[in-house]
């Protein structure tokens, strides 16, 4: 139970840090699961338009019980509402919007990220394959791709790798990774550590990261 609570707190920490990626006035796609949680932490002053790849630009709050419309869901199949100024469209138009790089930002979950920005987040060989949904399109779509994930797996092994071991969702597509421990940018020169979460040291991050990590000159510690 305590462990579960910890997990929830860690997820909230990641989501709150990810929220800082969202610039006011921008168009954002949030992946299913933890990324969807990010919406709960969007700061009051920010004007953000959230896109749902099933055909909605301008996701609003969850509906009140009496507002529920079964024809109105997000990509995670949860009932939602639409903001003022929203629009509905087909999946073809939705992915034209995504593929055409009209979204400013996508925040997606990850299973593994490589130091060259490869992302694996859709299948584990040997386990039932559920499908990639829209992830393979989205990683090539938004102007900035931010991945949020745990830094290590349950065995303590790094999920930030030299090379992904799982089948890829996209190759050289990730711009930034936010984990429970650190924030890293994928740059021409390699993977750069730019922020460290509260309670962790540079040495601990480097040690728990399989990928080669360059330390940013502007590294900030305890930012979240």
């Amino acid at each position, binding site marked *: 139970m305590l462990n579960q609570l910890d997990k929830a707190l860690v997820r909230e920490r990641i989501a709150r840090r990810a929220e800082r990626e969202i610039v006011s006035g921008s168009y954002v796609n949030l992946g299913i699961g933890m990324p969807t949680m990010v919406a709960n932490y969007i700061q009051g002053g920010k004007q953000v338009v959230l896109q749902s790849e099933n055909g909605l630009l301008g996701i609003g709050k969850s509906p009140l019980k009496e507002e529920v419309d079964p*024809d109105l869901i997000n990509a995670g199949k949860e009932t939602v509402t*639409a903001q003022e100024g929203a629009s509905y469209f*087909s999946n073809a138009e939705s*992915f034209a919007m995504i*593929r055409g790089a009209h979204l400013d930002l996508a925040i997606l979950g990850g299973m593994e990220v490589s130091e060259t920005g490869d992302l694996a987040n859709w299948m584990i060989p040997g386990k039932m394959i559920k499908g990639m*949904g*829209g992830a393979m399109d989205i990683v090539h779509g938004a102007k900035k791709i931010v991945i949020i994930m745990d830094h290590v797996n349950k065995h303590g092994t790094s999920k930030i790798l030299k090379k992904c071991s799982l089948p890829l969702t996209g190759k050289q597509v990730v711009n930034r990774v936010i984990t429970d421990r650190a924030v890293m940018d994928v740059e021409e020169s390699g993977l750069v550590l730019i922020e460290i979460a509260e309670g962790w040291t540079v040495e601990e991050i480097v040690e728990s990261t399989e990928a080669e990590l360059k330390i940013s000159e502007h590294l900030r510690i305890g930012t979240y």
Partner: protein
Amino acid sequence: MKTIYTSFAEAVAEIQDGSTIMVGGFGLVGIPENLILALVDSQVKHLTVISNNCGVDDWGLGLLLKNKQIDKMIGSYVGENKEFERQVLAGELEVELTPQGTLAERIRAGGAGIPAFYTPAGVGTLIAEGEEVRVFNNKEYLLQTALKADFSLIRAAVGDHAGNLVYNKTARNFNPMMAAAGKVTIAEVEQLVEPGTIDPDHVHTPGIYVQALIEGAQEKRIERLTIRQEA
């Protein structure tokens, strides 16, 4: 001008064993509920089904699956269905997974007479194996071909006797592209109205794409009811 059915059994009667069918919807939203039920009753077999998802165990395309009427499924996400997993692992069901945006665009291409196009989705991944990769402006793209169907079963909120359709909110999803990509498109509409009722500027699917319509009441099951409490 269009065929207007009053019996769902009649509406699906031309669909034969081995047909390729497209079925509209995203999750359980926007699916033609009664056409699917009629297809289950028809016992038609060896279907190839093109749909983003495959329903849940006891509703939507999951019912066709349970009844072993599907030989091959083309979709982007099929994870809500335990029977699906069982049939795949048992080798009873062939699956072709395609990125959602590629699926939508392949269906659009099918209706639009575009035989093939290039897209970045899937470059450098498993799904690119055996596919043609080509560089445009220093970026790699995959060649993808159009998808068509013998029958498209779609759902709209309103349809008129000229075949024009209007969808409600996110129930639009794959329905407009499938309407155009089906050799025969059968639209299940919540409300059937006279031509002239729908403003021509509000039409989502022009009537030319629709061969037959039928009015049907929808259950609209909710997969993930998410509500907020009054503040």
